[in-house]
Every structure is written in structure tokens, then in C-alpha cells.
């Protein structure tokens, strides 16, 4: 790793504008700056339709979205033009809000193939199995889970745990959790949160995208950002999330409506 890369944030989003691939094209993310450094946990909050999932998908490289302007940098490298798999091999992991079912492909197949793609070599069977068992145990998941087809017939909670299982196995340097807390009962939420907390380390950056603050009761973020209408309008510490918990988004929406200047840059490092 070059000196420059070592100093760089893990994720550096600069002036990003993103549209849904048309027709019709519609700009959803309208200028976002966001930096996540190693060891930091950021929460990105916002009302429905504010562009949170679009931002997450665009950072991950989804072909369903077009980057109109701006850049996405991973470890200081501009990856804006790279495909999703190239970004993933550089350490990015997206936990999907709505994970796709892949009939016929077992969790084990997926995990082995993903590890091979990231490491360049097939993990040894023994090493893989040990790691899988340990991660399953952490997430209180039965071993039979690993033999099921990916997300096929999974309950909402199982899908989210399957995402965290992959997160735990793949050990990314940047994890984006897109509404991983939605649709979970308290027990499942706690399990998922424990999985995320187990992952926290000085080497990894985490971006938690959530509509509610529920998960933030279990995973304490270092920074909280509020996305409204495709722009980050507030940034702060965990007290911002507490305030939203108490008051909802209305005060913020009113403040913007009254002409308050949105906080454009939210590098989180200050």
C-alpha cells in the first residue's frame, strides 16, 4: 500500500450525482460528499425516497444506476468506472436491502466462489469449514442453513442474517449495510448487530444505511448523516440520531424548507 493510500479514507465519495438508468432517467442522488475512514462507523439516515439505497447501490457499482457526476474512491483509488466485482475485490461489501434469491446455488457454493474471487485462490476445505462453522455460530444460525439455496425461500430475518454471514466470511475493508435492520424482530436485530459489532476493527470502515435509528441502539456510530432529496443535509454525532428518534424527520425537513443551507460536505473526519 502506498503512503498516499494509507492516508486516504477507505471510502471517499466526491460530488456524486446518480440517476436511474432510463428511460426515463431520473437523478436520485444529487451531489453527495462522504468519507469513511478506517475504524469508523457512519450511519446514513433519511426518510423514504431520499436516495439512500441508490447511493449504496451506486457506490457498489450497480449497472442499474448511472453516475452523472463525481467520483467514488476506494483506498484512494478512483473506482467510478469499475464493475461491481472489481470494487468487491478491492474490499467493498454491500449488504442488500432486498437480497436476490438464487435458486440452485447454495450458500456454501456462493461463499467458496466469493472467497476464491477475493483471495485469488480456493480456500482449503478444512479452513473454510472451520470459518463457516464459527461464523454460523456467532450468528446463531444452524449449519443446515449453509446448504440451502441463496435467499431462496428465506424469511426476511434469514435473508438479513445470510448477508451478515457473508459479511463475516468475506471480511471486507468497507461494509455498506443497506437497511439491514428493516423487517427484523428484536432478537434477529440483536443478532445482526452483534455480527456487525464483531466486525468492527481499526481496519474496517462501516456505513450503515437505515430509515430508523433502531439498529443504532446496538451499534453506536461515530458519525450520523441525514440524506434528504439526494443530498446530505445534516451531519453530526450519535446525538443527531437520538434527536431523529425523538422528533422524527419533520424538524429537519421544515428547517430545509425554511431555507436553511444544507450541510454540503460531511467528511466526518473533522
Amino acid at each position: 500500500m502506498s503512503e498516499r493510500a494509507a492516508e486516504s479514507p477507505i471510502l471517499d465519495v466526491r460530488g456524486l450525482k446518480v440517476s436511474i438508468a432510463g428511460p426515463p432517467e431520473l437523478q436520485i442522488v444529487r451531489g453527495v460528499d462522504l468519507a469513511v475512514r478506517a475504524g469508523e462507523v457512519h450511519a446514513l439516515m433519511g426518510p423514504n425516497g431520499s436516495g439512500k439505497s441508490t447511493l449504496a447501490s451506486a457506490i457498489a457499482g450497480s449497472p442499474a444506476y448511472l453516475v452523472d457526476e463525481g467520483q467514488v474512491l476506494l483506498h484512494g483509488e478512483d473506482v467510478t468506472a469499475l464493475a461491481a466485482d472489481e470494487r468487491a475485490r478491492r474490499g467493498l461489501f454491500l449488504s442488500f436491502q432486498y437480497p436476490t434469491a438464487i435458486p440452485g446455488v447454495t450458500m456454501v457454493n456462493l461463499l467458496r466462489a466469493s472467497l476464491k474471487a477475493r483471495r485469488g485462490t480456493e480456500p482449503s476445505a478444512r479452513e473454510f469449514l472451520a470459518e463457516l462453522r464459527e461464523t454460523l455460530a456467532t450468528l446463531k444460525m444452524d449449519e443446515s442453513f449453509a446448504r440451502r439455496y441463496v435467499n431462496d425461500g428465506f424469511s426476511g430475518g434469514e435473508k438479513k442474517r445470510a448477508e451478515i454471514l457473508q459479511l463475516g466470511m468475506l471480511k471486507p475493508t468497507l461494509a455498506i449495510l443497506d437497511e439491514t435492520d428493516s423487517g427484523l424482530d428484536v432478537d434477529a436485530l440483536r443478532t445482526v448487530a452483534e455480527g456487525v459489532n464483531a466486525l468492527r476493527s481499526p481496519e474496517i470502515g462501516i456505513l450503515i444505511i437505515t430509515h430508523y435509528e433502531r439498529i443504532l441502539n446496538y451499534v453506536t456510530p461515530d458519525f450520523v448523516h441525514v440524506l434528504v432529496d439526494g443530498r446530505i443535509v445534516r451531519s453530526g454525532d450519535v446525538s443527531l440520531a437520538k434527536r431523529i428518534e425523538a422528533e422524527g424527520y419533520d424538524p429537519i425537513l421544515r428547517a430545509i424548507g425554511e431555507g436553511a443551507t444544507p450541510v454540503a460536505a460531511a467528511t466526518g473526519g473533522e
Partner: protein
Amino acid sequence: MAGREAPEASSAAAVAAHPYGERQAVDAARGDAEPGWLVDRRVEGARAFAATAMPTPALRPWRYTDVSSLAIEDHVPHPPALTVRAELPEGAYAGTIADALASRGEVVRSHLGSLVASTEGRFVAANAARWNAGVLVHLPRGSAVERPIVVELSGPEVAEGASAALLPRILVVAEERSEATVVLRLRSGDAPLLVPSVAEVVCGDHAVVRLLLDGGWGARTREFTTLRARLARGATVDVATVAIGGRIVKQTLESLIEGEGAHSDFRGVALGDHDQHFDFVTLQDHLGPRTTSNVEIKAALAGASRSIYYGVTRVEETAAGAAAEQENRNLLLSRRAKADSDPVLEILTSEVIRCGHGAAVGPVDRDALFYLQSRGLDERTALKLLVAGFFEPVARRIPLEGLPEELAATVHAKLEAADLS
């Protein structure tokens, strides 16, 4: 014999200058010292060949496979390499038909051609006249073969330019309460090869026969198979076909489900690239009460390959309480790939328990592809996984140990170089 040939000497079949003429069939059969009744069958085949025209696209099962420019008679039968490996209980037989003629001539005589008549069509007639890779599996009453019977059939290596034919003839006679699994490993080289093939499966009461057609043909092999099974009371036939190689693979798979409570299962997977052409025709003919059947055929198509499915589920008036499922799914991996799917139901009784059919032709699920790519898999690797997964539910239900893994490895190897644009 000589006496009965004379009056026919002037007929077209007898004087034909190609290998499927009457005289050529007789000469070949005599050269192999076949018994008189079998020589007669060969003659019947040659006559049927002379009397039958090539099928045209006007016939529904041939709509998308135009063979009007194919001349079977230009393809000279060449003996294949044929091996049969089996661990058999006392009384059972698995081997060549030629070797069986002395000891079990009566079994062959009474069943060969009993399900597929030489007059049915030109490919079948050619096979009847000149089949040269005959395999008999005979399971006497109560005989259960535990390990799969493996038949390896390799087409002849013929010099470039020559047109050879390989004519497999498979006969399975499973008597009451017998059981076996038969695996046909079909292989050929790069030379052009025509394979008019016939398989007959006779299942007695409560017999269970599983048959796997493992099609690992070379790139210039053209296969035309007619397979028909007849099921007595409580019998089960389970036919699986894996079409990977070959230029043309056309398989007609039919089940006459006669006995009460009998069950027929046809499963198939096809993986195409370049200009490969797959054509599956199925018939599940429910004749007996409470009979059940299932057809599931899946094709994944790269390059300019093509798959055709035309299948009929027929439930006759006599088949009260029948249940049938029929499904064909096609995954298009490139813009030039193409599939046609036409499942048909013909229900002639009002007392059907359940009768379903489904067809689908479409590209890869983009969400699934993005999901896999987001895990670090490049597009080709992700597609390999998706295609292997597409086949997996079918492969897993083929009752042969190790088949899903074997198929997944084949899929990965073939898609490594396939045209996915």
C-alpha cells in the same frame, strides 16, 4: 432365406446402392452370423427405409429441425467402441445384443422392435436395418442391480471428409419387481458422425428403470434418438438426458404409462454454444388409472445455439386420477441464442388430479448477476454459477451419485470459453 429374397430382387430397396438397402442389410447381418429372424427384421427395416420419406418441417415435431437436406444413406455404418460394465446378480444380463443372442435370443426376439416399429420414420428405419451398437439389459423377475450399469459408446474415428454413422440400439427388459440404473456415456471425436438411435424400455409390474443419457458428443455429431418406454402396473421409468456436445441433438422421449399407478419421469439439461441445436420432443401418454408423470427440461444457451421443446401430456379416458407435470425452461446467455417452447396438454378424462405445464424463455436475472458480482465474482464466473444453479435442481433429482458435481464441472469448463456476448 435365399428363397424369400428372390422375389424382392428387383425392388428399389434390394438394389439400392447405399448402406440401408435390403441387400446391404442382409449381407451385414449374415456377416455377423445373426439368426434368421433378426435378418428378417433388418430386411423389414431396409424396406421401411426405402418406403419412408425424410420428415419435413410440416410435421409438428420437426418444425424447427429441418433435415430435408440430410441424406442418411450417405453415412456409412462404422462399428463403434462399445463396453458394458456391470456387477450383476445371478440371472441378469448387461452386454451387447450380439452376445445375448445365443443365450437370451427369445428375450431379444420378443422385445426388440416391440415399442418402436421400423415403419415409424426414416431414422428409426435406418436404425432397424443397420443398428451396430446393440445393448441389452435384461433383468429377470425380482432382480435388483445395485451399482449403475455403465455403457460406454464411442463413435468411430473416421478420416476427414468421410461420413460415418453410428447406430445404437438399446433394449432394456425389466421384468416384475426388478430394478437397475443404466448410464449411457455417449462420446465421439471431431469427425462428422450421424447417430440414428433407438432405445426401448420395457418395464414389468413394479419394475424400476433409471436411464441416463450422457451426451458428450464431438462438435460435428448429429444425433436423432427415439426412446420409448412402456410401463406396467406400479412401474417407474426415470430417464435423464444431459446434452452437452454435438452439432444437433434431437431426442424424442415417450412413455406409454399403461399400468395402474405407474410413474414416468423425464429430465433433461442442455448447454449450448456456437451453432449447437437441441430439439426435445416428449410424450407422457397416461393410459392407466392413477398414473403419474413428470417432465422437466432446462436449456442454457450461449453463442448462436438453439433449443426447441415440444411436448405433449396426454391423459386418456382410461386414466382417471392421473397427475402430470411438464416444464421447460430456457436461459439465454447471449443475444443470438434462441429457444422455442411448446408444452401441450391433451386431457380426455374429467378425473385428473393435477396437470400442470410451464414454459419460459428469458435472459439471465440481472439482479442475481449483480448480486454475485457484488461478492467479487467476475461476470463470466457469476454466469457459470448461475447456469450450474439453473441446472442443479434437475441434476440433483437424477438418481446417480456424483452427477450434480460432474455436471457443475462440465458447465464451468464449457462456459469458460463460451460466447456470452
